[in-house]
């Protein structure tokens, strides 16, 4: 084939290949073996090694939690309050770990989630029981002390009655959860015996309070401070009215209202001796709750009310903020009522969890920075501590463009281009310069070398010629590696000498005596003319 044609074909093919490759230059990884699978199996070498969480720890944690309820209830019953405090701290820590694990493993929708809710309520019940039992013990000793003083004795009796009612209500709620919790424990094959024992211990503590009531029971009348909660049940966002009267109270006297042993509000008695407080249901667990009031040392009876759990719905909308950030917004509502200041979790790509919070209108907004590519985001509300059920939004996909081209690599490429060009040019110039420099140096040295002495008598003619050649070459300052022909080229003035020597040396000719003498003269620098 004609070389021009083959060159043209080669050029065309090279250009075509470069264009095709250039089209993929923005995405240089043409193919990677990722998540290769068929219907029957997946290739484990190409599947990302990512565990969903410490799944092996889930069931043992549930086992530990049930065990802790048993220990805690026992230490409370034995009135070992220091150990009970330690046990309660450990129980809280385990509950926190368990909550985190349930969210990470994304199992809140199963019976594990139900177990988690029951566990939270159990934890609160046992904490309240510890405080109540401690106070109760103090009251029991106090009651004996103030037997003489009627007024103080009455106050102690009222408080004791309030505590007893609290413990009784607490126990009935605790016992109601036993069936469900035991069923779940059996499903996961964990030992529910400590938990069942804790229920029995709780019963004993409540019974002991009842017995004390029996002892001092005769002659006590109901507390002058009345309390009632209307309506007796509500949902998140509802307002319950806690109101009552104080038979022997002065107008303006302060009345402290407690909900679940935590102070909710301090109100003042009005002129009619009654008080009222609207209680809004916010971040409290669902289930039965207790309210009571105190006016000075006088405790009211305990009023029970129930908070029902409600369903929630959460929405998610994704919007692009810039090339690397996505804004996630949404609403969290329950039955058309917004859920305010609640924690919302955003799950990115089934892995990372980002926390957000709703504002006073139930709207949450969060900006997440993501790498370039496609991502899936889902918003979840887990209802921790709220009388609300968990809910999640449908998963939304978004493509993040990623940062545009930065100028730095282009600058580096230009710098490398110039650097390489400069280096290659320098190398080439240096290589061309060196042969030019040498002859100039040699002619300059020629004049400086003094005429040498040489002894050729007694040598055969051809060897004598060799000695003379070497002498002349040294005198002219030409390097010893140069051949006669090189020397003739370098020193044209002595070209004749060198050419003659070349014939003597390589063509086998023999110089005559006269020639030798002429060569000697020239070698020693006498005659500048050619021999």
């Amino acid at each position: 084939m004609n070389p021009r044609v083959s060159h043209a074909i080669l050029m065309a093919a090279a250009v075509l290949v470069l264009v095709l490759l250039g089209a993929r230059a923005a995405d240089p990884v043409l193919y990677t073996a990722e998540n290769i699978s068929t219907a029957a199996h997946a290739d484990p070498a190409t599947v990302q090694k990512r565990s969903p969480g410490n799944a092996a720890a889930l069931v043992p944690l549930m086992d530990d939690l049930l065990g802790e309820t048993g220990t805690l209830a026992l230490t409370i019953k034995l009135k070992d309050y220091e150990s009970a405090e330690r046990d309660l701290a450990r129980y809280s820590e385990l509950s926190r770990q368990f909550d985190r694990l349930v969210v990470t493993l994304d199992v809140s929708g199963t019976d594990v989630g139900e177990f988690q809710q029951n566990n939270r309520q159990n934890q609160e019940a046992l904490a309240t029981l510890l405080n109540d039992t401690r106070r109760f013990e103090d009251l029991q000793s106090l009651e004996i002390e103030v037997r003489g003083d009627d007024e103080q004795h009455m106050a102690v009796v009222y408080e004791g009655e309030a505590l007893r009612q609290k413990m009784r209500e607490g126990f009935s709620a605790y016992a109601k959860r036993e069936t469900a919790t035991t069923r779940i424990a059996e499903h996961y094959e964990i030992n529910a015996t400590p938990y069942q024992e804790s229920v029995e211990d709780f019963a004993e503590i409540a019974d002991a309070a009842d017995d004390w009531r029996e002892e001092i029971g005769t002659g006590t009348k109901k507390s002058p401070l009345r309390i009632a909660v209307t309506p007796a049940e509500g949902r998140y966002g509802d307002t319950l009215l806690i109101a009552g009267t104080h038979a022997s109270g002065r107008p303006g006297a302060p009345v402290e209202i407690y909900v679940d042993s935590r102070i909710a509000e301090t109100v003042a008695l009005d002129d009619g001796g009654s008080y009222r407080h609207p209680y809004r249901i916010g971040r409290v667990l669902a289930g039965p709750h207790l309210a009571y009031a105190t006016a000075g040392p006088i405790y009211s009876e305990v009023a029970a009310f129930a908070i029902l759990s409600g369903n929630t719905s959460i929405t998610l909308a994704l919007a692009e903020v810039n090339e690397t950030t996505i804004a996630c917004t949404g609403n969290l509502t329950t039955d058309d009522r917004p859920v305010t200041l609640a924690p919302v979790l955003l799950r990115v790509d089934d892995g990372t969890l980002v926390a957000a919070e709703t504002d006073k209108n139930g709207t949450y907004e969060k900006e997440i920075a993501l790498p370039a590519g496609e991502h899936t985001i889902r918003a979840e509300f887990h209802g921790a501590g709220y009388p609300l059920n968990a809910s999640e939004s449908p998963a939304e996909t978004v493509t993040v463009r990623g940062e545009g081209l930065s100028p730095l690599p282009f600058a580096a490429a230009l710098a490398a281009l110039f650097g390489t060009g400069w280096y290659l040019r320098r190398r080439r110039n240096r290589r061309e310069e060196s042969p030019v420099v040498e002859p100039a140096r040699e002619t300059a040295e020629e004049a400086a070398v003094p005429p040498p002495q040489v002894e050729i008598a007694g040598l055969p003619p051809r060897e004598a010629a060799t000695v003379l050649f070497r002498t002349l070459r040294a005198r002219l300052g030409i390097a010893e590696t140069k051949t006669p022909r090189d020397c003739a080229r370098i020193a044209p003035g002595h070209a004749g000498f060198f050419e003659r020597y070349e014939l003597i040396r390589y063509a086998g000719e023999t110089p005559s005596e006269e020639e030798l003498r002429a060569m000697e003269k020239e070698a020693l620098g006498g005659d500048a003319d050619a021999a």
Partner: protein
Amino acid sequence: MQREAWAVLLILLLAGAAAYAHVTTTTEEYSRYNTGWNGTSGFAGEEIRDLRGLDPGAALLILAPDRPFTAEEAGYLRAFLDGGGRVIIADEEGAANGLLADLGSTMRVRPGNLASLDRNHADPGLFLARVVGNDTLFAGVETVRVNRPAAVEGGEPLLETSILTWEDADGDGRITGSETFGKAVVGAREGNLTVLGDPSLFINAMLAENLEFIQNTRAVLLDGTHSRTGTANLILNARLWIQETPPAAAAAAALAVLPVAWHFGRKRDD
């Protein structure tokens, strides 16, 4: 000139090697001639085609059967089982349920989409199952990594998943809606008959994941006619047929030798 000839020869050799590799391998699932990740070319089991007269001390593996067993063949297998031989059926599509019924077993394979949280990979179907019970097949093995297995009903459990396993009906990889956690059995045995719910244990990509278990299956015989370890590739089948029928092998040898003999044997007219 000679240099160019060498270059051409080298390129032809490389091309020939590539063509040979292409023609003698296939990409069919579970095939012995598939050297890729989903083939069983790395599995060291001797292939047999006749179920008659099997050595009663051996173990026979039926891997992902796709052809039904005739009553005759079921009879041979029953005789083999009664004689003390061991039969291992690895199936995850339920095609072996007919054979199991014929052999009088109560075990059945229930195909489905098992997913578990007890795993080390992002794919929910690629998880760990625990070995329960005593069996020589699982001697020295505590956990087995299974690859999208099916559940096995009946029999005495050999391989059990953790309790955090569920049947992923909607295929979203999470436990949602009415899906519940529960232990699933993916390997069971009844006398000498063992049913494994995961034939993927024997593919090339999984051999390295369960080294001890594969070691224990070293001496197993493979049922070539019913397992899906064959191939639909014509060239491979032709080669196999030539190897197995002596007259055909002799004919092929003759075909190769005769032209050479004729070339050197004829009288030269120089």
